[in-house]
């Protein structure tokens, strides 16, 4: 009903894809948005060509951050790390299909931030 919460977002929020943890994983990263307390962890397993074979997310937060994480774990299947590094803000917004103000943008982009930190091999969650 509200543009802001298109069916697809609520669907991903209520029925998150790839929710859970992969242990062991090739790449794991976790971070939060201190403004709202949202916290997201993403785990990735790579195939022999270093492409994403499996991806999972866990954590909790608002519909926007959870839905974007859920969509992202679907989106990156089969992608190489280099391809992941190319993913931009616009793609996430396209996936969500909505416009967001600066505050909610941070929610929407949290999972991308976590994913990229993982892809770049950053290990300290605090920066």
């Amino acid at each position, binding site marked *: 009903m509200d*543009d802001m919460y298109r069916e697809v977002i609520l669907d991903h929020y209520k029925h998150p894809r790839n929710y859970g943890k992969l242990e062991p994983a090739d790449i794991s990263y976790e971070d939060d948005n201190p403004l709202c307390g949202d916290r997201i962890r993403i785990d990735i397993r790579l195939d022999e060509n270093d492409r994403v074979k499996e991806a999972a997310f866990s954590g909790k937060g608002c519909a926007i951050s959870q839905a974007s994480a859920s969509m992202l774990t679907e989106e990156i299947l089969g992608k190489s790390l280099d391809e992941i590094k190319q993913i931009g803000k616009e793609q996430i917004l396209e996936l969500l299909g909505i416009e967001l103000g600066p505050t909610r943008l941070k929610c929407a982009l949290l999972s991308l931030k976590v994913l990229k930190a993982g892809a770049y091999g950053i290990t300290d969650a605090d920066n």
Partner: protein
Amino acid sequence: MTDSLDLSNLRADFPVLAREIKPGVPLVYLDSTATSQKPAAVIEAMNNYYRLSNANIHRGVHTLAEEATALYEGARERIAKFINAKSAQEIVYTRNTTESINLVAYSWGRANIKAGDVIVITEMEHHSNIVPWQMLAAEKNARLVVIPVTDDGELNLSRFESILEMGPKIVCLTHMSNVLGTINPVAQIAEKAHAVRALVLVDGAQSVPHLPVDTQSLGADFLAFSAHKMCGPTGIGVLWGRKELLEAMPPFLGGGDMIRRVTLTEFRVNDLPHKFEAGTPAIAEAVGFGAAIDYLVSAGMGAVSGHEREIIAYALDRLEEVPGVKVYGPRAERKGGVAAFTLDGVHPHDIAQILDTRGIAVRAGHHCAMPLHERFGLPATARASFYLYNTQAEVDRLVDGLYEVKKLFA
């Protein structure tokens, strides 16, 4: 509704309340704890200042400078009267509550706090009444001790009693919590603090706008508040302090107007309150602040707080009827017009966002009170807050909106 507040007329004083968020969707502004809306009289006062009298103050001989000085100092007199200060010299203009508290932490704090000294804050403080004391404590190797909050959202006063045995130098507490709405018993706390010769700094950011506050009976030694939360402009706040204390304190910021005389090797400070007002101050903002004071005085602070008591009682009743809603803090009789709440299964950000599409402005997050949220195990809450211009019909729209949120997330 109280007799003394004529709401329909009063709402017309605030231009923004006529705003529609989308065509046909009028604004329901429930975020006055973050910042209040401004009556036209305040906006116009600043307008007129800029259109007729704008000049730099003090030392100016020409007509505009004298007019600007009279307006700037006249506002100070009215603010002093509003909080029943003994003298306008006790009113120091700052940017906001935050700067007022920092001023004390820097000036009084650096001169008086030594290694091992105890500084007391509470668990329900806004970050602005936490971080300055953390910085001071870290610099001086002092101890920061915290009065905890009970499950009901009140200060744990028996713990306070034992903290007093540590001989604290200063007790810093909020008069009214910006999350729980709790109104703290400042006079009682101050009496005990003074008995062990501790000073008392009161964060009045939420009390001065909403309750009658009388500095001569409050018990505080310092009181900090912001114009923007009380119908006034952004960019100006006040530190009130007892004159003897302010006089004994070293200056904070150095520069024009805070000195009597400068040579290349030394300076001599000016009299109060100018000693603490370095550089060109927020002149237009003081003019606007004065107009805000006039507005609140003519509404009557008793009527304002009475209206808020009624509306928060109504709001708590209605909110608690929504399944899954939980409101934090004390019962209506013991708090101001703030309702921070959660709704099962829906993140506060989502609540706020969906309410916004219906024109309803509430805040979501930690409201700059992370330790308090941690105390209640919450990353965030949604918060509806009320002021003199809010109506019960607006509470109804909020509750309707929450039912819609529930439906969406069902």
